[in-house]
C-alpha cells in the first residue's frame, strides 16, 4: 500500500470515528427527548419536563461537538478523496447536498428554539421544536446512510466518459434496497446508545443517592426503549443487513465470519483468530451449521469460503474486519442480556433496588459506543478493497496530489485538536451530570 493512501485512509477513519461518537447519541436522544416531552405534555408531570430539560443540555453539548467535527467530514471528500469525489460527485453529491439543504437548516433552526426558546414558546410549540430537531437529525442520518449505501451497493448509475459515474435514476439512488436495512440498523443503534446513556446516568444517580425521582424516570424510559431497540438490532435489522451482505458482498461475509473453506452446513465461529498466512481459523469455538442457517435459512446450505474467491477481491484487513464484527455481535449479545434482565426486574418492580443490575447498567456506558463503532468498521472494512463496491478501488480514489507528508501534518493536527475537544467535552458533561436536573424549578419555569 502506497503510504499517502494509508494516510488518507487513516485521516478519514480517525475523523469519522471520532465524529460519530456524538451523532449516535444525539440521534438516539432526540427520540427519547420527544418521548419525555410527550409524556410531560400528556400527564402534566413537571418531573418529565425537568428530565427533558436535563437531557436537552446534554444533547446540546453533544450536538455542538457533532457539528464542529462533522464539517471536516464533508470537506474531506474533496480534500483527501478528490478522484473519488470527481468521479462520483454527480451521484452522491445529490444525497450530500440534500442533507445540507433539508436537514442542517431544519436542525440548526429548531435546536436554537429547543435550547433557548422554552420560556418564549408554549409547551406545544416547544414540543414541536423537539420533534423538528428529531426529524432533522434522522433525515440527516438518512442522507448519509443513502450515500454510504450507494458506496456499498451502487445502483441507479451509468458509466460516462473517463472515470465518471453518472446518475441514471434519482429514485434508484434514494430507494437503494441496501439503504433500508442499513438505515434502520444504524438509527436503532443510535436509540440503543441514547437509551443506555440514559440508564447509565439514572443508575449512577440511584447508586449515589441523588435525584432519585428523576433517576427512576431515566431508568424506566431507558430500559423500555433500550430493550425494544436492542432486540430490533438483532432482528429484523441485523438479520436484514447480514443477508444483504451475503447476497451482494459474499466475500465480505466469508471474511467477517473467518470462513476460509467452502462448505455446506457451515458452522458459525463464536471465538477464534483468523490466520491469513495458513488460511485457517485458530482455536475456534464453533456452533455447527449455524452460519448456513442464519444466512440462507437452510441448515445444509453451502457457504462459499475465502479460498474460493480471487485474492484481489478479499478485504485487505481480514483480521480487523473479523474482530470488529465479532466485537459488535458480542457486545450486542451482552446488551440484549442486560436489557432483558433489567426489563424483567422493572416489570416486577425490583429494578431500582437491585444494586448488581444498577452497577451493570452504570458500567455498560461504553458498550453501545464500542459496538456501534465496531459495526461501522465492519461495514467499511468489509467494503474494501473497494471504495465504491465493484466500481472503484480505494487505491484509485484518493487525492493524487496531496502527499503523505501534507496528509500526516493535518492528521496529527486533528488528533491534537480532537484530544483537546475530548477533554473539554468530558469536563462539561461531568459538570452537567454533577449538576443534575433542575429540581428547584418545579412549576415555576414558565
Amino acid at each position: 500500500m502506497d503510504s499517502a493512501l494509508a494516510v488518507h485512509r487513516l485521516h478519514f477513519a480517525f475523523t469519522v470515528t471520532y465524529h460519530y461518537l456524538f451523532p449516535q447519541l444525539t440521534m438516539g436522544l432526540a427520540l427519547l427527548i420527544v418521548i419525555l416531552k410527550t409524556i410531560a405534555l400528556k400527564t402534566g408531570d413537571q418531573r418529565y419536563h425537568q428530565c427533558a430539560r436535563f437531557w436537552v443540555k446534554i444533547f446540546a453539548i453533544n450536538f455542538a461537538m457533532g457539528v464542529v467535527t462533522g464539517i471536516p467530514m464533508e470537506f474531506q471528500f474533496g480534500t483527501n478523496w478528490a478522484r473519488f469525489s470527481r468521479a462520483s460527485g454527480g451521484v452522491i453529491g445529490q444525497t450530500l447536498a440534500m442533507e445540507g439543504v433539508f436537514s442542517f437548516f431544519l436542525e440548526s433552526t429548531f435546536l436554537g428554539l429547543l435550547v433557548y426558546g422554552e420560556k418564549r414558546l408554549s409547551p406545544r410549540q416547544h414540543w414541536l421544536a423537539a420533534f423538528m430537531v428529531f426529524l432533522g437529525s434522522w433525515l440527516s442520518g438518512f442522507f448519509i446512510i443513502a450515500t454510504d449505501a450507494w458506496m456499498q451497493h451502487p445502483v441507479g448509475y451509468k458509466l460516462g466518459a473517463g472515470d465518471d459515474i453518472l446518475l441514471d435514476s434519482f429514485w434508484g439512488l434514494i430507494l437503494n434496497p441496501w439503504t433500508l436495512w442499513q438505515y434502520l440498523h444504524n438509527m436503532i443503534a443510535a436509540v440503543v446508545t441514547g437509551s443506555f446513556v440514559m440508564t447509565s446516568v439514572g443508575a449512577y444517580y440511584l447508586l449515589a443517592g441523588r435525584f432519585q425521582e428523576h433517576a427512576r424516570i431515566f431508568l424506566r424510559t431507558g430500559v423500555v426503549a433500550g430493550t425494544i431497540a436492542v432486540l430490533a438490532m438483532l432482528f429484523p435489522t441485523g438479520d436484514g443487513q447480514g443477508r444483504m451482505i451475503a447476497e451482494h458482498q459474499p466475500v465480505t461475509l466469508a471474511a467477517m465470519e473467518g470462513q476460509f473453506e467452502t462448505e455446506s452446513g457451515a458452522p458459525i465461529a463464536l471465538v477464534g483468530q483468523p490466520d491469513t498466512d495458513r488460511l485457517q481459523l485458530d482455536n475456534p469455538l464453533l456452533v455447527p451449521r449455524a452460519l448456513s442457517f442464519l444466512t440462507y435459512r437452510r441448515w445444509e446450505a453451502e457457504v462459499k469460503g475465502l479460498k474460493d474467491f480471487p485474492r484481489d477481491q478479499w478485504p485487505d484487513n481480514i483480521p480487523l474486519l473479523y474482530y470488529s464484527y465479532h466485537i459488535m455481535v458480542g457486545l450486542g449479545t451482552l446488551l440484549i442480556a442486560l436489557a432483558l434482565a433489567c426489563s424483567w426486574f422493572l416489570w416486577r418492580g425490583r429494578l431500582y433496588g437491585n444494586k448488581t443490575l444498577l452497577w451493570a447498567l452504570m458500567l455498560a456506558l461504553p458498550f453501545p459506543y464500542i459496538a456501534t463503532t465496531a459495526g461501522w468498521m465492519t461495514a467499511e472494512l468489509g467494503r474494501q478493497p473497494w471504495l465504491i463496491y465493484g466500481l472503484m478501488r480505494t487505491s484509485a480514489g484518493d487525492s493524487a496530489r496531496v502527499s503523505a507528508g501534507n496528509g500526516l501534518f493535518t492528521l496529527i493536527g486533528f488528533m491534537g485538536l480532537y484530544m483537546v475537544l475530548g477533554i473539554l467535552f468530558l469536563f462539561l458533561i461531568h459538570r452537567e451530570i454533577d449538576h443534575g436536573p433542575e429540581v428547584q424549578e418545579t412549576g415555576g419555569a414558565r
Partner: protein
Amino acid sequence: MIEILWFCLVAIMIAGYVILDGFDLGAGVVHLFVARTEKERQQVLASIGPVWDGNEVWLLAGGGTLYFAFPALYAAAFSGFYLALMMVLWLLILRGISIELRSHIESRLWKPFWDRVFGASSALLALLYGVALGNVVRGVPLDASGYFFLPLWTNFLPNAQAGAVDWYTLLIGLAALIALAAHGCYWVVLKTTGELQARTRAFGSKAWLGVAVFTAIITVASFQLQSNIAKEYSDRRWGYVFPLLALAGLIGMRVASGRRRDLGAFLCSCVYLAGMLTSAAFGVFPYVLPSNAAPENGLTVTNSAAASYGLYVGLWWWIPGMLLAAVYSVFVYRHFSGKVE
C-alpha cells in the same frame, strides 16, 4: 444552459454564506475592540447566539451543492487548497466551541480565554476567505488532469509558482477582513444600545474608510492581474451592473449610517458584499477556477459540471428545499428580532 443556472445558484449560496456568516464573523472580529465589559461582550454574543449556527449551515449546504453540481471543481479546489482548507476547518472548530463553551463556566480565566479564541479565529477566517477568493481570481496551476496542489506560500509573488498566499491574495484577504469587520459593526449597531452601540458605530465609520480604500486598490490590482476580467466586462457591458451594485452599497453604507438608519446601513453592506462577489464571479466567467500555468487547463462552468440529468433532477429538490430553509431563516430572524438585552 443548466450549468449556468447552477453556477448562479451556487453563487447565490456562497453570497448568502458570506453575507450571513459574514456579520457574525465580523462581530467576532470587532468584539474585543468595541465591547469592554463582560456585559457588553455578552450582548455582542447574544446578538449572534441564536443565528450563527444557522448561518454556518449555508457553508455546508453551499459546499454540498458545489459538490453535486460541479464535482470536478470541488475535487480540484478542495485537494489543491488542502492546507489552507484544513486551517479553515480548524478555525471553524475553534470558533464554534469558543461560542458554545464560553457561557458554561463563570471564571476570570475561562471567559476571556474563549473571547480571545473567538476573536482570533473569526479574524483569521475572514482573512482566509479573502485569500481563497484571491486565488480564484488569480488562478491556480491546474494541469491537464484537472488537479493542482498549492503550498501555503512560496515567494509571495502572484505568478505561476505562487502558493496560496502571495501579496495579491493577501491584499484580498485584508480587504475581506475589513469588509466583514464593517459588516459586523453594522449588525452590532443594529442589535445593541447605549455605549456599546456608540463605540461600535465609531469603529464602523473607521472601518468604512478602510473598506473604501481597499475596494479601490483591489479593483485596480485585479484588473491588472487577471486579463480575463477586462475582456469579460468589455464583451458583456451589462456586467457593469455588479460593480455598480457594490459601489451603490458602499456609498449607501456611509449615507445610511450617517443618518442613523442602522438597518439601511446593514442592508447596504449586504448589497456591497454581494456586489463585490458577483463582480469577481462575472469577471472570471466562464472560468470557475482559471489556470495561471496554462489557460486551456482552467476549469469552466461547462467542463466541471455534473451530467445534465442529475442537474435537472436536482432542481426538483433544491428549489423547494431552499424555500423551506428560507422560511426557517425568516422565522428565526423574526423570532429573535429587536435589540438584545
